[in-house]
Each structure stands twice: as structure tokens, then as C-alpha cells.
């Protein structure tokens, strides 16, 4: 079984300080997205937003083992990946506000986030369309011998797209340094997995393409990190791609700021069960048990994060909007 091909090693040992930082990063993403949700009704962010509240451990666990020159390619639900990889908060918030200071100069909105300096190569709003771009980033790394890796983030829904299977075949055949990172949050918009795919372990997808895989508790940041360490090490060694499946859950609506449990597409109690397994509160409890985290530290984090968020929103609102006459610029390179 593919599950056993990646074994933990000593590289996965973490200092308490590093553990606490994983907590801080998840908390930061949560707070940022909560602020987006809270202020969305003010109608200053006039673009669709796909929040990843509940899925922070996947983003942080995956990106914490990457270096700045490693490339990630994300999806419509890109905020968490972008932030975890070190994307600029100010450039993201400005982009959501349609400002010139946005990472896409206001042209992309929330589904096109990228940050070249942080190794966020691109985010793509067409499902599955980002995955071959990561294969290409891995190809470039191999051709240029940078020893960098590429990570394709995608959802359970994207696994249904032919291009994702084509990408896996390409990456495996060419032994490319990349990781297919699948966040299985069980839904494509409002449609549950069992209406879209047969009952079989999603992780078996990797078998068909001859790559190792591991399925982990995507709400446990340490498990995600552990799986990524092996997948990334394999890629850097030149041994080819791997699949990591993070089992997780989206707390808010597919697109927009609200809770959507009232729509009735989630079985009763499902949301509450997953909320009880919140990646942040459960990791907090674990760190408290270890005696590594206490109220004072959390409060300090919250204060710093709040200040950073406040500044990002203030900067965005103060920034100029793109001048209409610039709209036609840049169609060609």
C-alpha cells in the first residue's frame, strides 16, 4: 500500500519555538479571513472571496517545510496558501479592495493571488487549471537544477478534472520535483463527494500514476508537516512526485463571508463535529498540554496580528484605485 512508502525521520523534530510558530501562523490566517468576512458587508471588497476557515492546518503544514524559492500554485481558495507561503498581506488585502497596490494591481481580485518573492507562482480560478502550472514549475526547477520543488494545491473536486490526471502522469513520467497536495474538504461547492466520485480511498489516485502517497489528518498541522517533509525530501532527491491528501473541512460558505449550514446540504451535525476538531483550537490545547503555550503568548500574538491586519486594511483603503485609462495596458508582454 502506498501509505507506508514515506516513513517519519528525525528531520521532523521540532523545537517548541517552531511549534508555537505553526500555531501563530494558523491563528494569523484565521484572523485575517475572519476580518475579511466581518468587513465584507461593507461592500468595499467587491470581488468573490473563497475563505479557507477550518483548513488552516493544511496550508501551514504544507508550506512550513518549503523555502521561498520553492513554488506553490493555488486555486480559487488561495488566501491561506498564499499567506502560509509568505505572501504579502498588504498586497493581498489591497487586491481584494481593487487597488493599484494589490498583488495583481487590482486586476485579478481574490482568486488570482501571487507573490513572486514568496514563491507563490500563481493562483488560478478555473478548477484544476493550476495543477499543470506546478508541473511546469517543477520542470523548470529540474531543467535549471535549482533543487527547488513545486507544490500544486487542489481540492477533492479538482481531482475530477482530466487535467489533474494528465498532470500526475506527466510529473511521474518525467520524475519531476513536485508534490500534489490535495485538500479533501468533502465538497465541491454544495455537492458532497459521494455524489461525484465512487467510494474508494481518494489517496489511491497516486497508485494509478506510480507515485507514493499519504493521507493525513488535515486538521493536524503536525501530521500534514510530517507528510510534506517526506514528499518534499523525495522531490529534492530527484526521486519524483508524491501525493499528500489532507482530510479537512470548510467551515464557511463556498464563496462569500457567511455560515451556510442553513442551506441544508451538509448532514445535520457535520459542521459542529468538524468545528470541534478545529485545527487551531486543537493545536492550542495540545501545546498547552505540553506547557509550551499560555494565555500571555496567545494574547501577544493576537495583538500583533490585529495591528498588522488593521494596517493592511487601512493601507488598502487609502491606496488609489487603478486609473481607468490604464485598463488597456499590459495585454502583451
Amino acid at each position: 500500500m502506498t501509505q507506508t512508502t514515506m516513513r517519519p525521520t528525525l528531520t521532523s523534530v521540532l523545537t517548541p519555538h517552531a511549534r508555537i510558530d505553526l500555531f501563530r501562523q494558523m491563528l494569523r490566517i484565521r484572523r485575517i479571513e475572519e476580518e475579511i468576512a466581518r468587513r465584507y458587508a461593507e461592500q468595499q471588497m467587491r470581488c468573490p472571496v473563497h475563505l479557507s476557515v477550518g483548513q488552516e492546518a493544511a496550508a501551514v503544514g504544507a508550506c512550513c517545510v518549503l523555502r521561498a524559492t520553492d513554488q506553490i500554485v493555488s486555486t480559487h481558495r488561495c488566501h491561506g496558501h498564499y499567506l502560509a507561503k509568505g505572501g504579502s498581506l498588504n498586497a493581498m488585502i489591497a487586491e481584494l479592495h481593487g487597488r493599484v497596490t494589490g498583488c495583481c494591481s487590482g486586476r485579478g481580485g481574490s482568486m488570482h493571488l501571487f507573490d513572486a518573492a514568496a514563491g507563490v507562482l500563481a493562483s488560478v480560478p478555473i478548477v484544476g487549471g493550476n495543477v499543470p502550472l506546478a508541473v511546469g514549475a517543477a520542470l523548470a526547477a529540474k531543467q535549471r537544477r535549482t533543487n527547488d520543488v513545486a507544490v500544486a494545491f487542489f481540492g477533492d473536486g479538482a481531482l475530477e478534472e482530466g487535467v489533474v490526471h494528465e498532470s500526475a502522469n506527466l510529473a511521474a513520467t518525467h520524475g519531476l520535483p513536485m508534490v500534489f497536495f490535495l485538500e479533501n474538504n468533502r465538497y465541491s461547492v454544495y455537492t458532497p463527494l459521494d455524489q461525484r466520485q465512487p467510494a474508494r480511498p481518494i489517496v489511491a489516485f497516486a497508485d494509478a500514476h506510480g507515485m507514493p502517497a499519504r493521507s493525513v489528518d488535515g486538521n493536524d498541522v503536525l501530521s500534514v508537516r510530517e507528510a510534506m517533509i517526506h514528499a518534499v525530501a523525495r522531490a529534492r532527491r530527484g526521486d519524483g512526485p508524491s501525493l499528500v491528501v489532507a482530510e479537512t473541512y470548510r467551515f464557511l460558505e463556498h464563496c462569500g463571508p457567511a455560515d451556510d449550514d442553513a442551506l441544508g446540504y451538509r448532514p445535520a451535525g457535520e459542521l459542529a463535529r468538524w468545528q470541534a476538531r478545529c485545527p487551531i483550537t486543537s493545536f492550542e490545547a495540545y501545546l498547552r498540554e505540553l506547557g509550551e503555550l499560555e494565555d500571555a503568548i496567545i494574547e501577544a500574538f493576537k495583538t500583533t496580528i490585529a495591528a498588522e491586519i488593521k494596517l493592511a486594511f487601512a493601507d488598502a483603503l487609502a491606496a488609489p484605485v487603478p486609473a481607468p485609462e490604464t485598463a488597456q495596458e499590459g495585454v502583451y508582454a
Partner: protein
Amino acid sequence: MPELARALEPRIISAAEAIREATVAAMERDERVFVMGEGATDPKGIFGTTSGLRERFGAHRVLEMPIAENGWTGMAIGAALCGQRPILIHQRVEFSLLAMEQLVNNAAKIHYVSGGRHRAPLVIRLIVGRGWGQGPAHSQSLEALFAHVPGLKVVMPSSAADAKGLLLAAVADDSPVVFIEHRWMHYASGHVDPEPRAVALDGPKRVREGDRATVVATSYMTLEALQAAEALAAAGCAVDLFDLRVLRPLDVGAITASVRKTGRLITVDTGHATYGIGAEVCARVTSAAFEDLRAAPVRIGLPEHPTPSARSLAEGYYPRSPQIAVAVGRAAGVSATVLEEVCAGLARERDAMPLDIPHPSFKGPF
């Protein structure tokens, strides 16, 4: 008689409701008709257009689809070859780009290459997004791509009544019909015949009469053009306004006849002007009525760049009624001062609502 019924009992519903009604009627009438799409059975029911269908017709006729557009389009074609009549739905035109291969290589050609033995009676409903910063990959109006391909029929309704009637005709048609709905058109309300009466896929509809110029618009732009035409008429410049409706096969007969009378042609595209639908209309009409044209035809459409997300950029992106009025008025020789007044009136109406939302009830996001 329909006029009388209308006067007695107007039945005002939105185009989105009309589309649902047409679907129900087509499914009731013909067991071979079935619906498929990503979200076809979800609580939002593709902007309400498929709500309740599964409860009514069962899961075997209302199929939820995985995100695998080319795959399920091919599947639909295969079923159609065996006599079924699928209605495929994509919540954005862009998602159907993944199915272009099946549509263009199989659906559009199979009747022709089989010497007329095969039929692929599909309807592909595509929804054009616009507004709320959806940006470059969720708002394109790509009808020209489909209209380029012989073997596909391409239809774009602009009213609730036509949405119902044309969809019924599309379902009854034995060829693949690409049925493009502008998301803002979904909000257009009007009287809709309660009976399931098809509106033939046989060409443009004149929605306003006049002799100063001929204006041809598609889909939602017909509504913008109508506002412009009404304001111009009030200023003494009545024009013929056509809602093109059926982009392929293209019948410009009535438009040509109108241009023979007016000598002036202005097209208003929902998509890009370059290589757009208006370009084809202008070319055909110019060839047919060159000697009757008194001015060069004018094309209005989207500019030469993708849709930017930022509101400040998107506002100038879409032509609105004042720009249409200016282009039409100029062609028809309306004086600059009169045109200024016409535009000021239209702009006042326009500015009463934010430019990136389709309807006052809209609170974002799509």
C-alpha cells in the same frame, strides 16, 4: 389573441424563472430530455433555473456532475447519439472551455460526417458572468468562439419570453444548440406565455421601430441599446432596434432590409468587438446593401483587453446606454447639443445604481 391574453392577465416572471419553466415543460413533454450540470441539484439550483427539478423528475433525469466538463459533454453526446436529449449547464461560459474539444470536434460535426445519419440534439446552456469583480476568468462573453463553428447553433435571449420560447425550440432542435444566458438577463422580467410555445430559431426580432438608423444588439446589450433607443426616440430620432437572438445560423435578411431604409448600421456586442458577432453582421449587411449605406457601419463591444476585477477598471469596460446613444445619434446625424441632453438623461438613470451589480437586490458575491 396573445395580445388580448396579455392585456387581460399579464404574467410577469423573470428570465431565470422562464428558463426553469421551459425546462420543466420540455421534460414533461419528452421523456428523453434530461438535465446535467455541476450544481444542477444543489440548493441554489444554478441561479434557480434547475430548482426542484430532481424532486419532480428523479435523479435519473437530473444529473449532478463532477467537475469534468469535457468528460460529461462527451457523455452527453454519446447519449444523444443513442436518442436522448440532454440539456447541459455550465454556471460560467469559461467552464465550458474545457469541453470545447467534444463540442467542436464531435457535437458540431457528427451529423455532417455521418452523411446525416447521426444526430446530436444537445442544448448547452452557458451563463455569462458580469460584475462584482469576478475578473478575467469568470465574466467572458465568448459567443463568437461558438458562433465560428459550423454545426453548432448559437442562441442568446434577451427577454423572459424569449428565454422560454427559444429554450423550448433549442431542446426540440435536432442539432447541438449553444444557449448563452447573460447573468444580468436572468433578472429581466416580463410577460411570459404560460403555455410551452417554442419561439422558432429563425432570426432577429425587431424590438423598436424607426427609420434613422439600424441597431443590432445581442443578449443583455439589447436592454442597454433599448434604453438608448428610447431616449433617442424621445429626442426625435427613432431607430430600428433588432435583438439578434440567433447568432448561428445567422439570418440578416430583416436587418439588411432595415439598412436599405435607414442607410446606417450600428452593432452592439455583448462580447469583444474584434472578431465579434457585430463584425459578421456588418460584413454581411455591407456586402448585401453596400449601395444603400450612407455611413460606414459602427461596431460597439468590449475593448481589447481581459475583464479587470477592480471596479474602477471594470466600469469603463462595459459599454452602457449613453455610449450607445452617442454612437447611434452621431451616425443618424443628431446634433451634438441634443445628444448631450440625451446622454445626460441616460447617465442620470445609470448612475442611480452601482455599475457592478445587476439588480438592487444583489448583495454580492455571485
